């Protein structure tokens, strides 16, 4: 069953030198699916994610959520951010409560839900701690609790592990997979943007490869490695898939080495 459908999406950033960020991007995401989008910097993958979240508008094409076009933020689609996006002036608990209260959930109930979800991500003892005093991994846990507490159907993740150290990142990756597999939680469709290919292969059912600007989907790779993948991470199949995806990205970049482009401040 498809939950999300992206149809010939186009995005242009206007300006003196207008930039086509996305061109004719189409794909579908099924229920219970874990989809990862990879591509070189500036290919518009983060923009794409924001369009799904309803906080960035399209210049053509459409995104359907349960067959209905997305026109703005939807409480059934939430997001976690690369730099966590926590309000520094609010405690962990207040950060998780805020979206609930904005959506009209009574204070007492919002508090209960927030405590429950912070407990689920292992932060039961840090309810009244400010982000300033939390480690990177803990901040991202607050971000995850905040996103899950809304009981969304789709969880969007914008390079959620790239500002964490590798050990923390690897723990959190497994935790996110555990949450994804947890049938008690209503959130079962995950959409992640990453530029870490092994991370994508480790976590996703499907990996969508995008080309540099204007961003297009160049290939849709199904990752056929049984789960739990921790046991298969030394499998030749794992490395072959990673290798294959890197090849495709390099080809899409026209033989140029990714990372050699000049930073133009976009993407």
């Amino acid at each position, binding site marked *: 069953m498809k939950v999300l459908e992206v149809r010939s999406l186009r995005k242009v*950033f*206007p*300006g*003196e*030198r*207008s*930039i086509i960020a996305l061109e004719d991007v189409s794909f579908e995401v099924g229920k219970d699916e874990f989809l990862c989008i990879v591509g070189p910097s500036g290919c518009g993958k983060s923009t794409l994610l*924001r369009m799904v*979240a*309803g*906080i960035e508008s399209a210049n053509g094409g459409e995104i359907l959520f349960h067959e209905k076009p997305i026109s703005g*933020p939807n*409480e059934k689609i*939430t*997001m976690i*951010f*690369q*730099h*966590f*996006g926590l*309000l*520094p*002036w*609010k405690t962990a608990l207040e950060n998780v409560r*805020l*979206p609930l209260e*904005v*959506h009209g959930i009574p204070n007492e109930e919002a508090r209960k839900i927030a405590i429950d979800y912070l407990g689920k991500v292992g932060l039961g003892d840090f309810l009244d701690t*400010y982000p*300033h005093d939390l480690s990177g991994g803990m901040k991202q846990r607050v971000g995850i609790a905040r996103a899950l507490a809304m009981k969304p159907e789709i969880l969007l993740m914008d390079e959620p592990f790239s500002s964490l150290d590798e050990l923390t990142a690897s723990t959190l990756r497994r935790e996110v997979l555990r949450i994804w597999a947890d049938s008690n939680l209503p959130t079962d469709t995950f959409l992640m943007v990453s530029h870490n290919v092994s991370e994508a292969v480790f976590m996703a059912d499907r990996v969508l490869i995008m080309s540099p600007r204007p961003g297009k989907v160049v290939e849709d790779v199904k990752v056929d490695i049984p789960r739990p993948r921790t046991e298969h991470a030394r499998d030749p199949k794992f490395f072959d898939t990673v290798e294959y995806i890197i090849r495709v990205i390099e080809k899409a970049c026209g033989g140029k080495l990714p990372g050699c482009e000049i930073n*133009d*401040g*976009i993407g």
Partner: protein
Amino acid sequence: MHAFGFVMGLLAILSLYILVISVVHNPEISNLPYYTLRTLARISATYLIALVTGLFFGLLATTKTGSMILIPLFDVLQSIPILGYFPAAIIFFISAFNGAEIGLELAAMLLLYTSMEWAIFFGVVGAVKNIPTNIVEAAKSFDLKGYGYIRHVVLPAIVPSLISGSTLAWGDGWFFMIAAEYITYGGKNYSLPGLGSYLAKAAYVYGDTNLAIVLLIIITILVVYINFLTWHRLTEKAGSGTYKPILRTDWPKGLALSGIRRFTHMPHIPRIHLSFGFRHAILSSPRRGIYSRLEKGMAVVTVIALIFFVATVAKPGLPSLDEIRGSLLIPEMANLPFYTACTLTRLTVAYFISLGIALSMGILAAEKKGFAMIFYPIYDIGQSVPILALFPILFVSLSQIFGGILGLEITSLTMLVADMIWYLFLNIVTAVKTIPDEIREVSQLIGMKGLQRVRHVVLPAIRPAVVTGSMLSWATGWNTVIFSEYMSYGPKVLWLPGLGSFLDKTALQEGNTILLGFLLLIMTALVIALDRLIWRRLLRKAERYAVEVM
């Protein structure tokens, strides 16, 4: 493009001058170009001296011993309201040169110099302290030492803050120009040829408000023109070479380069330096204004010594204890608490009016991007108006409507607001602009509506900026309050009850230097106490939960 703008601007200004000279009827109007050049020369010469000494002391203050002495010293010195010790300087220079013009010129330059020096000095110190550790370590690993280190690491690092410090200093120079050029002392008016004194004379001597307004507009145009020619272009150029991370804003790049932004040559990022100003230079250093007891003690001793120096050179011979007692125990001293309360109330009222306006503008800028686009040009022109020069114009017109005292009170408050608002405004609008994208996106994603967004995101995000802006606006407010509580035109003297007018009366009418020093000490103590007890505490608290810039 720049050359074109330069020529067009110059032509426009020249034709404006020709127009004004041929249309306005005033015996001195033909001297307008001469006055302009005198004022320009006065401010430029003082600026150059301030630049060189600021750079020198600033670099000296980054050495271990230097920082122990210079930073606390300059920190206390910059807390002394400049216009408070100006009367003492006038008394000294006028008597030293028997009232010759050179004495006045030196007094004026001293006033301008002290208004300029701190911004440059603290800019340099702050910039050197903010050189990232990795750059310092990289330089060490390549064995860059002594001159090489200064040449390749320190100097490039201080260029942006030297420019923003200079922008501030230059602006302060124009701000104090009228106070420096037109002096009333002992019932007599002294004036130096210049735009400021001409403006004052237009209002007081000729009673020609229209001419005063024309002059104010000319001065503003000159300031804006020179700013665009120099500081803005320099700021733009320096922007790409700073160590500061480029703050992410949600202005698409294309937009940032187009429209008003390009038209006005508004530098995008480097304004951050400016907004945090020179006071922030000490706060942002790891020491964060917490000085050791030794440093504090030394600073206090130095200041007392300095005040005594000023007081005694002005009145040769060390005053005896009786003399001191006699000077201090005048009947009016009984009013001191009342005067202090008046001045504090005046400042507080003006501060809250300014804060209210600046906050509303900041929130508007946060909620509607279009407003942010127009606010920067407004700031640019608004802060270029030399506020002190508004004084004669406002007073002459307001006193006709409300009568002398009420007119003066309204003038004083208006001037305080017009002066205090810019620091708040700039800091708040800058803070709004630097709210990280992710935080904006979160608030959008959560679906927060206007008021919720203001309460949960905008207000907390700008809190540190409000505190920084408040510190700066109070600092400048003290000067304006001294200037605006006391008014003497022709034979008449009007004054509002307050510390500022007490100080002016003491110095300018009675020449009581001991009392002058005492009042100055009180005022400085008030400034420092407010700073330490209120602003620095609030700042430390606000910064704890401030947005971390990625």
